[in-house]
């Protein structure tokens, strides 16, 4: 059990393991932008953080990657009413660390394979739900 001593468990100290890793550097920021749909192209695609080898084709030249990242940062900064500098400043990092919903900002819901709380068919194409009942 998680250790506590008070009857009402108010001293239930959350284990440090269970704290989200703060977004504190460029790589984490890139993952955030990619995870929540701020990298353009395939939704949730995102740009490859430095050193990542995309299997299919040569990564874009560093300059293009930097410009793309700056553009994504600017879009994120705009909607969060931050100065759209395109630079990863403290205010932008703070906005990235605020409690948030896990659904990307550019789609109504998560679209990957539904979780297996109940085995279900392949994800339906966006739009009206499939008429047939999902098979178990």
């Amino acid at each position, binding site marked *: 059990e998680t250790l506590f001593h008070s009857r009402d468990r108010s001293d239930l100290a*959350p284990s440090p393991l*269970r*704290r*989200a*890793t*703060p*977004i504190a550097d460029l790589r984490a920021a890139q993952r955030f932008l990619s995870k*929540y*749909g701020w*990298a*353009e*192209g395939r*939704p949730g695609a995102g*740009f490859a953080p430095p050193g990542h080898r995309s299997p299919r084709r040569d990564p*874009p030249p560093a300059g*293009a*990657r930097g*410009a*793309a*990242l700056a*553009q*994504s940062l600017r*879009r994120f900064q*705009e*909607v*969060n009413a931050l100065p*759209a500098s395109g630079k990863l400043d403290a205010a932008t990092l703070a906005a990235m*660390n*605020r*409690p*948030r*919903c*896990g*659904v*990307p*900002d*550019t*789609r*109504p*819901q*998560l*679209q*990957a*394979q*539904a*979780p*297996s*709380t*109940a085995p*279900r068919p392949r*994800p*339906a194409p*966006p*739009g*009206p*739900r499939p008429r047939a*009942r*999902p*098979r*178990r």
Partner: protein
Amino acid sequence: SLQTPLPGPDWQPRGSPQGGGTRAFAKRTLTWRLVREGYSSQLSLEEQRYIFRLAFRMWSEVIPLNFLEDLTGPGATIDIKLGFGRGRHLGCPRVFDGIGQEFAHAWHLGDIHFDDDEHFTPPTSSVGISLLKVAVHEIGHVLGLPHTYRAGSIMQPNYIPQGPAFELDWSDRKAIQKLYGSCEGAFDTAFDWIRKDRSHAGQGTARFSTYFFRSGWYWLYENRNNRTRYGDPALILTGWHGVPAQNIDAFVHVWTWGRDERYFFKGNRYWRYDSDRDQAHTEDEQGKRYPRLISEGFPGIPSPLDTAFYDRGKQLIYFFRGSFVFEFDVARNHVLGSRPKKMTEVFPAIEPRDHPFRNLDSAYYSYAHKSVFFLKGNAYWKVVSDGDRRQRPWLPPNGVFPKRSIPETWFDVCDVHASTLSM
């Protein structure tokens, strides 16, 4: 690749409400369940289920969808499944990150997960993360709403700590109604309830509240906010003491210098309501016992009635039944001309054939609009008012304007599932 140029500063995430989102369900009643393997360790199970029931009800109060908690059906048939988990959870490919940052997510097939490492709290609490707010947000996603950065929206991606009470604002209501439409349905009766007050200067004032009745439920309509009261509908039984619990035919408020009488009609009887004591009279100051037969209290008036309203200027009650209207003189206590008239004769159509003709659901005098409205099914017809005739003298007295749809004028009068009625 990020090389492609991006739209300019007014960029909105694709699928944002400006783009509208996508409707996710075609049926009218959706089932939901808090999955057994996904109970939270922070709130009692009853509290978790109550909060989810309330979250679904808040959406149901503004769209023609009902939500039913289904604890027994096969899991695969449940439309929306909710669960709490930590880290790797509930077979979900998207791992939660612990306290802070991501607190929940929603899948397009209707699964909603909450990170149980977060400090979720009940609606009354002003600390932690309101489970109700997060649940309403995630249900909004499952229904098809994307994130928006519009201040005040429940669909903002980040959690906005604010006072414990929150509601769906106008724009969120319009965004979801763009996907599921507005609420429709006939009413049994509609009326304005006058309350007399004293101003600070001791002057007598009167305030009115607008009510819609349907079956065993009622809504208070807040005209200044263009919506029903948060948390309505409620049971007639709980709000109106001593009158029939459902299917009221008519309400009439006879209000003259010397009289202030409020009557509910159902079948062949009527009840007088005591506004001060907020209950039906059993016997009034004139020694009359209630309920009374309509034929006793209003000689010449048939029953059951379709509806009725009181015209303060003419001091007449208009009783409607079928295609006829009975003009009842309250001073002489009898029907004018001792016979009914055709509704189309007393209230002529302005546009030929655009008239309710018969079987009204409700004839409602609205103090907000200073007009009489005939409600029937999902439509209404406005009767020419004195104000209309001052502006357009050629309009026939008591003429009936062309038909319009009720949800165009009175917004968000929505049913909820009976299982969530007395929340």
